[in-house]
C-alpha cells in the first residue's frame, strides 16, 4: 500500500498558507510561522511543546483548553493561532514562579481538586481569570464562572473548595 510520493503537480508555486506571527507567551517573545488553519491549541501543543493545555471537546464547551489572551480566558481549541499575533498569552506553564506554585495551583493541590487531571489546567486558568475579576467570589459566583469548564471525575465540590481557598489566600 505504501507508494512513492506522487508529484504534487506542476505549474506556479502554491501561495503561502502560513503567516509569521509574534506574541508574548508566558512572558517571553515568540515569533513563529503559523499555518492559517492552525488553532492556538495546536500551536501551543504541537509546535511549541507546551502540552499542559489540553484539548477535549474541540467545540468550546469543556474549557480544558482555556488560556489567557490579554488577560481574558479563551478556548484555544477554537481560536486561530494567527489571532494570537500581537497578544500576551499565559498558559498553565506560565503560572508558577520558578519552584513556587501559583496560589491557585497550590489550592487545587491542597484541596484534592483533581483526579485524572485532564481538566485541571483549564480550571486553573479560568480560576486565575475569575480571581482577577472578582478576588472574593461567593460560591454562587464560583459556580457561574466555572460552569463552562467540565470535570468528569470530581463532581466539582473539591474544585469549589480550591477556588475559595485560593481566594482566601490571595485576596487583598
Amino acid at each position: 500500500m505504501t507508494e512513492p510520493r506522487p508529484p504534487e503537480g506542476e505549474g506556479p508555486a502554491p501561495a503561502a498558507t502560513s503567516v509569521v506571527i509574534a506574541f508574548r507567551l508566558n512572558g517571553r517573545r515568540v515569533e513563529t510561522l503559523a499555518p492559517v488553519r492552525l488553532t492556538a491549541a495546536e500551536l501551543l501543543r504541537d509546535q511549541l511543546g507546551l502540552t499542559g493545555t489540553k484539548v477535549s471537546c474541540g467545540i468550546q464547551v469543556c474549557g480544558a483548553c482555556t488560556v489567557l489572551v490579554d488577560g481574558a480566558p479563551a478556548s484555544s481549541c477554537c481560536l486561530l493561532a494567527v489571532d494570537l499575533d500581537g497578544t500576551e498569552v499565559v498558559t498553565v506553564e506560565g503560572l508558577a514562579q520558578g519552584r513556587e506554585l501559583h496560589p491557585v495551583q497550590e489550592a487545587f493541590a491542597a484541596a484534592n481538586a483533581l483526579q485524572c487531571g485532564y481538566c485541571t489546567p483549564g480550571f486553573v486558568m479560568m480560576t486565575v481569570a475569575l480571581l482577577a475579576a472578582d478576588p472574593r467570589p461567593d460560591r454562587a459566583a464560583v459556580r457561574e464562572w466555572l460552569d463552562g469548564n467540565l470535570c468528569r471525575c470530581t463532581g466539582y465540590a473539591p474544585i469549589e473548595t480550591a477556588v475559595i481557598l485560593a481566594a482566601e489566600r490571595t485576596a487583598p
Partner: protein
Amino acid sequence: MTGQPEAAPVPDPARPPRRDAWDKVTGRARYASDAAMANMAHAAVVRADRAHACIVAINADEARRAPGVIGVITADDLGDLGRRFGHIVCDHPILAEDKVRYYGEPVAAVVAETPHEAADAAERVWVDYEDLEALTTAADALASETLIHEESYAGPERGFLGVKPKADTDNAAHRAELGWGDVDAALAAAEAVVETSAAFPLVYGYAMETYNALADWQPGGLHVVSTAQHPLMVRKELARIFSLPLAAVRVEVPYIGGGYGSKSYTKLEPLAAAASWATGRPVRVDTDVEGAMHTTRADGAHVTVRTGFDSEGRITARAIDIVFDTGAYADNSPLVLTKSVNRCFGPYRVPNLRVRGTAVYTNTTPASSYRGFGAPQGALAGEMNMDMAADRLGIDPTELRRRNLLEPGGTVISGKRGLDADLTADLDAVAAELDRHAGRGHEPGVRRGRAVAVTASDAGASPISTAQVRMHADGSVTLLTSSTEMGQGSRTALAQIVARQMGVAAAAVAVGQSDTLYTPFEWTTGASRTTTVVGLAVKAACEDLWRKLRAMAAESAGIDPDEATSGGGSIQVAGADLAPAAVIREWFGADAGEAVGIGVVRGHGETALLPPFWEIGAVGVEVAVDETTGEVTVEHLVTVGDVGHAIEPDLVKGQDLGAATQGLGIALWEEMVYEGEQLTNPNLIEYRVPRFTDMPRRITSVLAERGDGAGPYGAKGAGEGALNPVPAAVAAAVGRAVGVWPTELPLTPARVWALLRSAAETEAAGLAKPPTAAGGAAPSTVRGPAAE
C-alpha cells in the same frame, strides 16, 4: 429551590497532597495524547456513514495523491496480520472487511505527515456500499432474521471466563442466567406481585482524554503508548495480531485522562500498530469526541422485574429479564451482562429467583465496560421496583428494604463470598442524613421527592496481580505495578501501603507508571480492584522484601536465616537492631545495591473465594421538580462509602462524589440518541454531561469503616459503588415528586414535563390519592407513587 449553595468540605491541611498533584496542576503530567516519537506520522480514520452495509469498493486513489499522504490502509492491506480483535469474542475487525456494522465504524486509515493533511485526505476516500437492513435497537435485532454477524467466531481464540460463542441463528451476542427455587409457584402464592420495567439509556463515558494510541512497529517488536486501562490485556491481543512473543510487545500507559471503565480492553491500539506496520513509521491515531462516541459506549438496557411479597413485605420471589443493547461488537459486554445478572436482584433475601439476560448485537457503536458494569442497568428497575412495592404494600420504602436486606455474612449467591458489609447500617445512615436535611415548607410550583437505593456488586476483580518493591541502599523504596493511574489516586494509596509495611515515610516511596517492558503483570485496572487486590500484592511484596532482608542480614552475620527476625521497621540479628538500609549496604559491601520483593495474588488464600469483596452502593437523594419546566434539581445527595477501611479518606470521598455525579448524569441528562441509522448527538453540546451548576445543593459523604474487607487493613474497593444506585434513586425520587413512576432515563425536562402532564390527567380523572410525605407510607391501592 435554589439559593446559596452549601459549603464544600475543607481539606485536611495535615495530609500531603496526592502524589500526582504537582504534575497535574502545572500541566506537566504526561498523557498518551501528549506522547510523540521521532518521525511520527498521523492517521485519520475514515468512518462508515451508514449502519449496516456491504462494502462494494473503496476508492482511495485521490486520497493517496493528496498532499502529505504516506499511505491509505484498508482491511485488504493488512497482509498476514490478525484481522480482528476482541478478548471475549474475536469479532471486531481492525478495519471493516466485507461489511460495516455501525455508523462510524472505521473503514480505512489515512496516514499523513500532519493531522490536518490526514484529515483532509480522509475526506477523499470514497466507499461504495450496498445497504443491508439496519437494526439499531435490541428489539429490532431480536425480531429480525437479518444477522449482524453471520459467524459465531468459534475457534481457538474464543472463550474467556466461560463465555460461549453466540449461536449462528440470531443476533444474541451472549445469554446469561441465574436462579434457584420455584419462582412461578412463589409468585402465584404471593400476597402482592409488583412489576417494574425501565429503560436504561445508551451512555458515553466521556473520559476527557479521548481514545488515542501511538504505535511504533519495528521488525520483531512493537511499542505502543495508549490510553488503555488494562495494558496487559492489550499486549496479549497485539501479540496475537502481530504473531509476536508477549515480551516483544511493549504497552506503555502514562497518566490516563479519565477511564471509568470506558478505556478497558483494546480500542485503537491495533489500528495504530497496523498503520505503523504498513507505513514503516511511528503512527498516532487520535479521536475527537465524535470519534470516541463511535468507539465505545455503555450497554443500554431494558429490564423488567417482577417481585412477589408476603403480607409482611418480605420478598418471596423475583423474576427479572434483562435485554442489553450491546452494539455492533461484543467487546466486554458478555461479561457486563453476566455481572448485571448477578447484581440486578439486589442484596436481599430472595428465596426464589430467575434472571434471564440477553446481550443483543445491534447496528450501533459497540458497548463495553463502564463504571458500575451492569449494576446500574439492573438496579434502575430493581430498586425502583422496591419503591413501587413499598407504596403498594403501605410500608415505608426504607423499612421495606430493611426487612429484606441480607445480614452481614449472608449469602447473596450460593458459592460466592458472603456479604462483607452491614447494609442495614449503611441504609440507616443514608436515611438519617436524608431526613435530617429534608426540604421543608411549601414552595409554589415546586414538587419534592426523596428516595434511597442500595446495591451490592460482586466485584469483577479477578485476583491476578503481581507487584515488585525495590528497596535501595538508603532504605527508600520503588514500587512497580502495572496498575494504571487514571485519577483514582492509586499511586498515592499504594505508596501508603508500602510506607506502612516497610516502616518508611510515604515520601520515600516512588511509584512508577505502568509499562509492560518494566512493570509486572496486572490483570486489569477496573472493578474498583486496585486498593484491595493490588494492595494485597503490594503487601505480599513487602513481606517478601522483609524475608529477603532477614536472609541478607543472617548471611552477613553468618547465622541461620531463621535466627534473624524483623519488626518495628528493623531487622534483629544477634541482639542488634539493624535498619534495612544498613542490611543492604553490608550485604553488598558498599553504599550500593538493592533488595527486591515480589508479591503475587492469585485465586488462593485470602482471595480464593470470589468475589474478593462486594462493592456496596448506598445512596439517597432529594430532588425538586419545577412544575412549569420539568427541570429537576438535586437538592441533597447522600452517599455512604462502605469501604471497610479508608487508606486515604479524601480520595475515597472523591471517588464517591465523582461516581455519584456520573450517576446523576445518567439519571438526568446523558443519552446517545440514534435517529434512523445515525447517532445524532456526537458532541458535548447535545450530549450533556453534569456541569458545575448542576452540583447537588447539599452533598453528604459518609464513610463506613468496619474493617470487614479482605484487602489490606480490612479495606474494600470503592469507585463504582456510589454510581450504581444513583439512577434508580433519582428515578424513584422524581416519581414521588411527580406522582408517576418514570419508565426511562434520562429524566430530561421534556420527559419530566410529560410525566407531570400524565399525572395531571390521572388526577383529573379522579384516580389520585392524597399526597403523602415523600418516602413515607402510602395507601396501598393506587398505582402511581405517593406525591408530596
